[in-house]
């Protein structure tokens, strides 16, 4: 058994407890950039780190660097509300997101790092007969896609989430819902750190505080990048930078069909366990789950205008909180403890963009919009395949940039409230 695998054993905990916690070694190395790599991945969030890991594990490509302008997992990976689900309408999306759920199911074991994936189930609540009918249509499509979805009646929804407003005379009464029982939440920082440790132990360089400032393009091909820590050459470059994808694409001389928005989230003060499932409502435009610490983790729709400010505007904060209080009247007594925002890259069809860019040697992993966290293991697997082979994986092929000119978009606009 190698040292990395021994690191967090019960024996190691006991030994370090007695030794005053002085013998731990870093989980991964903070490297200086080398002048050249086989593959350079720009962006040290979940997708970038997972891509590096699968390049090393699946494809045996270990001369890889992950560049991060801040600290790893400090962008949207550390700012999202950690929901994992695959309840998507189109077969292409179900194949992508369900691959991700399946990979998440085995990830703690694969990385030997507890990502605390809790498959507690997620309910979407229906508040009108019309909404329930549309929900049944969606649920049928998802079941045909092989995703575990069940329609619930009103009593079943209220039994699973007893604090939901059960009054039939309120603005949005609970009439039923649908549940994906394999959906749930995970520890976002652990996903970033688990992939970082596993990639690092296979020889990947994780380079922080390294911002890309320009591309060196020769005859239509990227040969190197300029960074705040010097020039770095590589055979292939992958970008996985979420809300800043358009900025990076602009440096390389092309535009993307993306618009960057702030997506905000917030938590209440911690309370004892009171909500066992994740609950979302498209009518209210809000969703909530309870963290292991007891905080209620809340989110809602995008902010009202494009933004690169990682904070969020007050009108949306207000709308999320007022929706949650309408859904769960007892939450009105709780204090809001923290609120924050991340910059998400929304695409016209609410589906990601994976594959080659208009510049040879530069590949895209972007457009995940509000749902990137749930897709990290699949995004990493597919992007590693693309970077290693130069070709699409069957699951990534429909998500190529070319779909915007061909018209074969995968319109997941119905996907509902942003989570």
């Amino acid at each position, binding site marked *: 058994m190698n040292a990395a695998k021994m690191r967090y054993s019960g024996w190691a905990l006991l030994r370090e407890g007695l030794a005053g916690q002085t013998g731990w070694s870093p989980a991964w190395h903070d490297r200086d950039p080398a002048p050249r790599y086989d593959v350079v991945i720009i962006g040290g969030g979940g997708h970038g780190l997972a891509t590096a890991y699968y390049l090393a594990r699946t494809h045996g490509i270990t001369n890889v660097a992950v560049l991060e302008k801040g600290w790893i997992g400090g962008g949207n990976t550390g700012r999202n509300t950690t929901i994992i689900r695959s309840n998507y309408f189109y077969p292409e999306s179900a194949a992508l997101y369900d691959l991700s759920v399946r990979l998440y199911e085995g990830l703690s074991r694969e990385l030997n790092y507890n990502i605390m994936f809790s498959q507690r189930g997620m309910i979407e609540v229906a508040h009108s007969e019309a909404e329930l009918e549309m929900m049944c249509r969606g649920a049928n499509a998802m079941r045909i896609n092989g995703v575990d979805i069940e329609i619930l009646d009103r009593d079943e929804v209220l039994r699973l989430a007893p604090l939901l407003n059960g009054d039939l005379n309120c603005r949005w009464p609970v009439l039923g819902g649908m549940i994906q029982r394999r959906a749930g939440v995970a520890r976002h920082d652990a996903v970033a750190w688990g992939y970082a440790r596993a990639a690092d132990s296979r020889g990947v360089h994780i380079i922080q505080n390294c911002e890309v400032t320009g591309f060196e393009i020769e005859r239509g091909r990227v040969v190197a990048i300029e960074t705040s820590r010097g020039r770095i050459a590589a055979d292939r470059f992958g970008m996985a930078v979420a809300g800043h994808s358009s900025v990076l694409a602009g440096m390389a001389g092309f535009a993307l069909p993306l618009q960057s928005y702030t997506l905000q989230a917030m938590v209440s003060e911690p309370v004892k366990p009171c909500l066992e499932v994740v609950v979302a409502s498209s009518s209210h435009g809000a969703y909530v789950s309870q963290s292991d610490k007891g905080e209620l983790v809340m989110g809602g729709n995008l902010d*009202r205008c494009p*933004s690169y*400010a990682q904070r969020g505007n007050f009108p949306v904060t207000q709308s999320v909180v007022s929706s949650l209080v309408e859904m769960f009247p007892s939450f009105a007594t709780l204090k809001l403890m923290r609120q924050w925002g991340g910059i998400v890259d929304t695409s016209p069809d609410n589906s990601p963009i994976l594959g080659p860019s208009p510049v040879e040697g530069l590949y895209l992993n972007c457009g995940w919009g509000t749902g990137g966290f749930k897709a990290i293991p699949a995004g990493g697997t597919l992007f590693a395949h693309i970077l290693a082979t130069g070709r699409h994986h069957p699951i990534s092929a429909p998500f190529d940039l070319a779909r*915007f*000119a*061909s018209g074969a978009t995968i319109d997941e606009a119905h996907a509902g409230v942003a989570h």
Partner: protein
Amino acid sequence: MQHFPCPWCGNRAEVEFRYAGDAGVQRPTRTADDAAWAQYVHFRRNAKGAAKELWVHSGGCGRWFALSRDTVTHTITGSEPVA
């Protein structure tokens, strides 16, 4: 609550306005190819920093205007009617 300057109504609460896309996007000619149409329909500058945007005062006079806004600081530097 941020206030936006409507060229006709003056400073009003941001919730009265609706964002409607980049200002100055040029519609291609009928004979343009798919790539040009895709650029027009889907591809955006998505500026970090100074941007010029189309807004409509949907909860007020209902008129359209161009707003100069910084997407990092949210500072507004100008507002003008559009033809």
